[in-house]
């Protein structure tokens, strides 16, 4: 079992309110990812769960027991640190065995568990080496090994992949996912990388300035972001935003600003009935913009001038000037365009997002 519940968690650092009233239920066997920009309170929250940081107010419970006042060692958790935190003066074997030795396990049991973990992680050859004789990826595995030999109720990961190069990061990401499927232990994972969050998480918590913005499955965050921040944070390249004024003409709703005038599709229009005459924030993802052709007749369209063409091979990113603002579109690699071209761009009508211009909450 490994159910973690956070109830009204707050953290103050020297008068700074770092974590604000976080309420969260992390289910047993779940892979929960905390994501957000640096300084959003995600690592602090993780450290509070670990017991490395005191809680200013609120309750943290693991499997129903409040652990607020338990020392880290008594919480039955294991943590993987950003810099691995391997003991430099111990061999790989001793690094992994340390936690078991401290907990007075019998030697044969320690041996069995360390070899088993080393086997899972493919580091059986390295057991006699010292951390500094290992590459970044190998150190990462040892750090993982040190966590899994303990068979804890919860794994805590503090940006474990951020020190690896891009290629290795992708590889380790896949391995982490496999490892979680194999061990089935609850995992709480902190990252600032939204791709890691989307690919690893069963559910994702998006945080900003100490406040939880949204909790949900990856696709839920992508498709129905709760506010402009989540919409902009999840997805790459980031969602395009435009402040528009909603007006009514001939029974349909029009959204317009200096460079944009589109007829809103019915579904969106229904949500904006109450906002006629007001400003709202329109959001559309780069992948939901297409170069307008015959198929898109009837879709909301606007004119744009191409400023930059970024060839990625599998897609093309177009940086376009739309009125005063810049929008990015991700289009098929077959589209042939050049800088300075004028284009008619269509939006997928079902994929329009609207946010309140003041509160930034989704409408």
């Amino acid at each position, binding site marked *: 079992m490994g159910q973690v519940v956070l109830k009204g968690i707050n953290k103050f650092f020297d008068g700074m309110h770092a974590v604000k009233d976080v309420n969260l239920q992390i289910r047993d066997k779940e892979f929960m990812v905390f994501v957000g920009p640096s300084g959003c309170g995600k690592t602090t929250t993780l450290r509070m769960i*670990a*017991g490395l940081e005191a809680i200013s107010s609120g309750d943290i419970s693991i499997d129903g027991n409040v652990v607020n006042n338990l020392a*880290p*060692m008594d919480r039955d*958790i294991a*943590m993987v640190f950003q*810099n691995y*935190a391997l*003991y430099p003066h111990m061999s790989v074997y001793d690094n992994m065995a340390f936690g078991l030795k401290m907990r007075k396990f019998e030697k044969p049991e320690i041996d069995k568990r360390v070899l088993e973990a080393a086997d899972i992680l493919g580091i059986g050859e390295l057991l006699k080496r010292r951390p500094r004789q290992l590459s970044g990826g190998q150190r990462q595995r040892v750090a993982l090994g040190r966590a899994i030999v303990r068979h804890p109720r919860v794994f805590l990961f503090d940006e474990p992949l951020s020190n690896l190069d891009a290629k290795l990061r992708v590889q380790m990401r896949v391995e982490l996912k496999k490892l979680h499927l194999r061990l089935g232990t609850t995992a709480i994972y902190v990252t600032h990388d939204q791709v890691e969050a989307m690919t690893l998480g069963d559910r994702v918590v998006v945080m900003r300035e100490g406040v939880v913005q949204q909790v949900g499955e990856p696709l839920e965050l992508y498709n129905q972001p709760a506010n402009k921040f989540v919409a902009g944070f999840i997805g790459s390249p980031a969602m395009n935003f435009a402040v528009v004024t909603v007006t009514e003409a001939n029974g349909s709703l029009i959204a317009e600003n200096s460079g944009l005038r589109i007829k809103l599709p019915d579904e969106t229009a229904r949500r904006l009935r109450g906002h006629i005459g007001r400003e709202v924030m329109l959001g559309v993802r780069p992948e939901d913009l297409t170069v307008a052709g015959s198929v898109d007749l009837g879709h909301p369209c606007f004119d744009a001038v191409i400023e930059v063409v970024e060839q990625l091979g599998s897609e093309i990113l177009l940086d376009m000037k739309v009125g005063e603002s810049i929008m990015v579109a991700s289009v098929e690699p077959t589209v042939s365009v050049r800088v300075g071209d004028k284009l008619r761009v269509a939006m997928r009508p079902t994929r329009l997002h609207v946010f309140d211009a003041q509160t930034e909450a989704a409408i």
Partner: protein
Amino acid sequence: MAISAVSDTTLHEAPPPRRQRLLEDERWLAFVLLVPTIVLLGMFIAYPFIQGILLSVTSSRVGMRGDFVGLANFYKIFNDGIFRTAVYNTFLYTGVTTVFKLALGLWLAMLLNRNFRGKAFTRAFILLPFIIPTVLSTFAWKWMFDPTFSVLNWLLYHLGLITGRINWLGDPDLAMISIIIVNIWRGVPFFAISLLAGLQTISPELNEAAAIDGAKPWQRFWHITWPLLLPVTMVVMLFSVIQTFADFQIVYVMTGGGPANATHLFATYAYQIGIGTGLLSEGAAISLAMFPVLFLVVVIQLLYIRRVEVR
């Protein structure tokens, strides 16, 4: 490519003056850079050292050149009771003070490594005994141990712990204890600050990882902090042992080697014989008697440090 080719030819067309070309040669450059160090070491270390050796095998006195006498001076001092006391004292003094300095310095370093208000100020303050000229601070201590004016006696008397005066510097054992206390007081800051610097190179994450791994505070100290601090500790010990072994100022000011030559160390006894009595060659022999011990200490500790570092 074209640009670099052009600049290459310009380089070849205008060769630097001969002197500069000599410095381009790494062997010459190395030699030139080493010269100041060689001169300084030669003048202030090698020359006096060799002179000391030469002096110790003659019968020189102040104002008298003397003749070669072989190892007679050494033979004489090894049969000298005061010299033996000085040897015993030096080992005792070095041993006891080093243990206390290490223990107290480490304790202080661990305290200072925590976060608290006025941290920077306290750290600077701790260094005071180290900064004040030793002779000056030792004079202050001498007053504190003075039989008549001793503030220590006053304190102990008013706390009701003693009824009569303690003659700190008049009793051989108490005098030894007194100079040991002063040396510890003076040496702890060096240990504390150096070990603090060492502690700060140890990532706090290691202690956190160990805490999660189930290590209790003293286990974290023993399994994580201590082994990682060991190289720094050894270097600090090396410096301290050498300095303490050859210490002069504290004993000279506090007791002058007394009472009845009971607190002499190598250095003070060498000074007394060589300069005080004018038996230069014998004083040199006493000084040199320190050398093998110090040499051994340096070799052992450097070997140990190397072993710790490669692992």
